[in-house]
């Protein structure tokens, strides 16, 4: 079962860290977690993928949804610390330029 750890930094950036797989089982929960953060006013969100074992197209769809949700609220969603399989999925779906994966959480909102 994929788990989602959520925290908010003193700078007001929400960090969501899924542990496990992002697939059709966990994708709805990822959408929900990001949606709740944004609704609560945390519109800048970093998805920390350091503990994400794999991601499929359902997981990717949830990230795209989260990106749209955050941007519609005036914020943004960044992804950080993705492993080789996730990076391969971004590349193959031509979403690397849209989601622009960052190497780590700390630098995810350094530059716009």
């Amino acid at each position, binding site marked *: 079962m994929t788990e989602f750890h959520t925290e908010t930094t003193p700078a007001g950036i929400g960090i969501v860290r899924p542990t496990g797989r992002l697939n059709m089982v966990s994708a709805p929960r990822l959408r929900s977690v990001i949606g709740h953060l944004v609704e609560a006013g945390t519109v800048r969100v970093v998805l920390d993928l350091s503990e994400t*074992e794999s991601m499929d*197209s359902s997981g990717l*769809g949830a990230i*795209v949804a989260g990106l749209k949700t955050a941007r519609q609220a005036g914020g943004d969603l960044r992804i950080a610390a993705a492993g080789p*399989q996730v990076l391969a999925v971004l590349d193959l779906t031509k979403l690397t330029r849209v989601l622009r994966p960052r190497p780590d959480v700390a630098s995810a909102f350094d530059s716009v």
Partner: protein
Amino acid sequence: MYRLRAPADARVLDLVHDLLARFWTDHAGMPLGHRARFDTAVAEIAANVVEHTRAVAALTLEIRGLPDRVEAALEDDGEPVVVDLDDVRMPPAGHERGRGLALARAAVDDVRYERRGDANHWYLALRRPDG
């Protein structure tokens, strides 16, 4: 033999990943990027069967390594799938759905679907870099 047969519900997706991991443990030598692409394609087809194939009860997956390529064969007992793989396109960036088959096709060298008898058959292959 790298084979599993299980009920075609979401729980089978973990079994698919477990089987792939076991396969790669015994088939070292494939670059990590190639493994990631093969794993991605196999998981996508399995998820596609679970999510979209009607009246499916069981899913079978077989993986094998050949000198020049790795192959996966998935079989299910669901209703026939209406799909033209040559017509599958990657959706635009803002779309949240519809990438599964396009991703599988982009990840490996060969994806085929065939209806034989009462079963759906999916075949995936990825050539080794030196194959």
